[in-house]
């Protein structure tokens, strides 16, 4: 993990990549995107996630050309497209409510972009056929959008965006309007689509961390118009660089701890309620206040007499059964821990004293910054 200077200029992206170079957007007196820099490599699937109002959709709209930055530049490939109108940017875009043209049949919707660009009829017919086949909608090409389900309409919207062979594909919360079951299926289909089109650069805006973790090669977390953290999905999940990332991505347990000198260079140590706990290596000074980040599934219920390291003792406050798993809320020295357990396990009743433990490799130490990453340099993995 390392800190990245927020204002460091980024060179143009090669091929079909995207670069945000110190982009700021403000509506009247409200800053929506603040000195935002990010590089999306060609062929990469990048997810922008963050709470409502974090600026993720604004960032995407800057790439599309629908929002003009107050400062900074946008690159697609080697071209500075900051001042280029949307119809000349060569992008495909899919939005939450599909935005299919209701008076056109499926095949005409998919053909729209190529027709607008004056492509030869043979190429249009070929691309319409290819793209509808890619999204499994060939059998529906003669139907109108109103004759399709939500999931089918979104497939058509994706085919329409891909038909023009875009330099980049922008997806703005594309699954938000679908019900949970169809959304899960569509996530798998989008994953397959990315594997089928490895050269396609995708910028995917979502507030759903599961979608981001499933689909993205890398994830950028935005907060209050600033980049809070960016990194490969697995690394960002397992080693969140700051409190906000830990809470937003995966809703981690955060225990207030004090850093202690580590016994070796590849490990870290902290103290929680008088107990020394081993963690991943960290760069925080001994004696400084910090937060220990442990995911609910990294905690396991053990016997009270367990002699292993990293054991915490507490009282069961409540239990929740979710079908695929169950969750315990355990009060532990004034802090509350969430512990995930498989559904078949018989858990101690509410009020019982239990012990839980975790592996040092699954425990990350982040600075105890009450405001998350705001005001700090952007964190990158």
């Amino acid at each position: 993990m390392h800190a990245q200077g927020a204002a460091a200029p980024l060179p143009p992206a090669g091929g079909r990549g995207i670069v945000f170079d110190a982009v700021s957007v403000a509506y009247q007196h409200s800053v929506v995107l603040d000195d935002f820099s990010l590089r999306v490599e060609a062929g990469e699937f990048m997810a922008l996630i963050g709470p409502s109002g974090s600026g993720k959709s604004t960032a995407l709209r800057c790439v599309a050309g629908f929002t003009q930055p107050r400062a900074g530049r946008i690159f697609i490939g080697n071209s500075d497209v900051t001042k280029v109108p949307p119809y000349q940017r060569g992008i495909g875009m899919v939005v939450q409510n599909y935005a299919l043209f209701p008076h056109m049949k499926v095949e005409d919707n998919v053909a729209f972009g190529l027709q607008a660009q004056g492509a030869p009829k043979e190429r249009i017919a070929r691309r319409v056929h290819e793209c509808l086949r890619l999204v499994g909608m060939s059998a529906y090409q003669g139907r109108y959008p109103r004759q399709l389900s939500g999931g089918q309409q979104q497939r058509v919207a994706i085919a329409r965006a891909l038909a023009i062979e875009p330099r980049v594909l922008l997806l703005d919360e594309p699954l938000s309007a679908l019900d949970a079951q169809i959304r899960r299926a569509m996530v798998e289909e989008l994953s397959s689509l990315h594997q089928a089109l490895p050269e396609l650069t995708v910028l995917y805006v979502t507030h759903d961390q599961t979608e981001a973790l499933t689909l993205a090669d890398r994830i950028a977390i935005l907060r209050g118009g600033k980049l809070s953290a960016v990194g490969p999905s697995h690394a960002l999940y397992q080693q969140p660089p700051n409190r906000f990332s830990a809470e937003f991505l995966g809703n981690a347990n955060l225990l207030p701890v004090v850093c202690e000198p580590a016994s070796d260079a590849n490990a870290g140590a902290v103290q929680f309620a008088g107990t020394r706990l081993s963690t991943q290596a960290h760069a925080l000074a001994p004696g400084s206040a910090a937060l220990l980040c442990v995911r609910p599934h990294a905690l396991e219920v053990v016997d009270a007499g367990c002699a292993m390291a990293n054991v915490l003792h507490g009282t069961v406050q409540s239990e929740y059964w979710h079908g695929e798993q169950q969750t315990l809320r355990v009060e532990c020295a004034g802090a509350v821990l969430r512990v995930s357990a498989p559904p078949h396990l018989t858990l101690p009743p509410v009020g019982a004293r239990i012990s839980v433990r975790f592996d040092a490799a699954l425990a990350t130490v982040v600075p105890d910054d009450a405001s998350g990453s705001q005001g700090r340099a952007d964190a990158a993995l």
Partner: protein
Amino acid sequence: MTPRLHAAPLWVLPPLLLLGLVFFYPLSLILAQAFAPGTGGVTGWEHFAHILGTPLFQHALLHTVQIALSATCACLLLGTVLALLMSFVPFPGVGLFSRLIETYIALPTFLLTLAFTFLYGSAGMLNGALVAALRLDAPPLDFLYSMGGVLLAEVTAFTPFVLRPLLASFSQFERAQIEVASSLGARPWHIVRRVILPAALPALLAGGSLCLLLTVNEFGIVLFIGAKGVVTLPMLVYELAIQEGDYVSACSIALVNIVISMALYLFYKAVLGRLGGALAGLV
């Protein structure tokens, strides 16, 4: 419920009788007069056919159709451009402009023509300014007292009838369609032609057919302007009935006017019903 249903015919009888007296009876008189026998043993049908064959009627019909179609096309064009600008290229004061247009619909057309006389008439402000500026002996602009003047007044009076349903339609238009179309490479005119106007087709047809209905029957503007040689069907009915006292001929022409109006009205209702009147905000 049953007793009330059985009693219903008795209750509806008085209003029906009143309606018949004030509406259907005068219409039936026109119908009867239109087919009344002429002088010298000419039957009603022969007289009716004779009236329809006169150059006076045919010129009036031609002028009516010419003015109605031209004014409707111009209203559609102007209304569409204005609605597109007001909806998709918002400018300061657009709300006030929209409300003014709604108020405009309530004004009688002859008042508008009177204003036009002050503006563009021989002694109007425009001619007065041009005469003073160019030191002319006579007013240079004379278009108000021609078919062009009638068209200008009708387009001004009836464009709001196209504009209003279009604005209602555009207000429900999904803006994301425009953005997606633009991202796919479509330029603004292509988006207007392929995406926006097809969605506004019901509103266009509704506004256009209403405009056609109003322009076919417009009387005040044509009378007030008094354009030389511009006689429409309503004007001809007025001249024959009021000025010449030829009620039979006037009723024959009025019958044709009624048939055209009813056909246009039925078309207007069909458009509203079948092509999404709810979308146009009119039903």
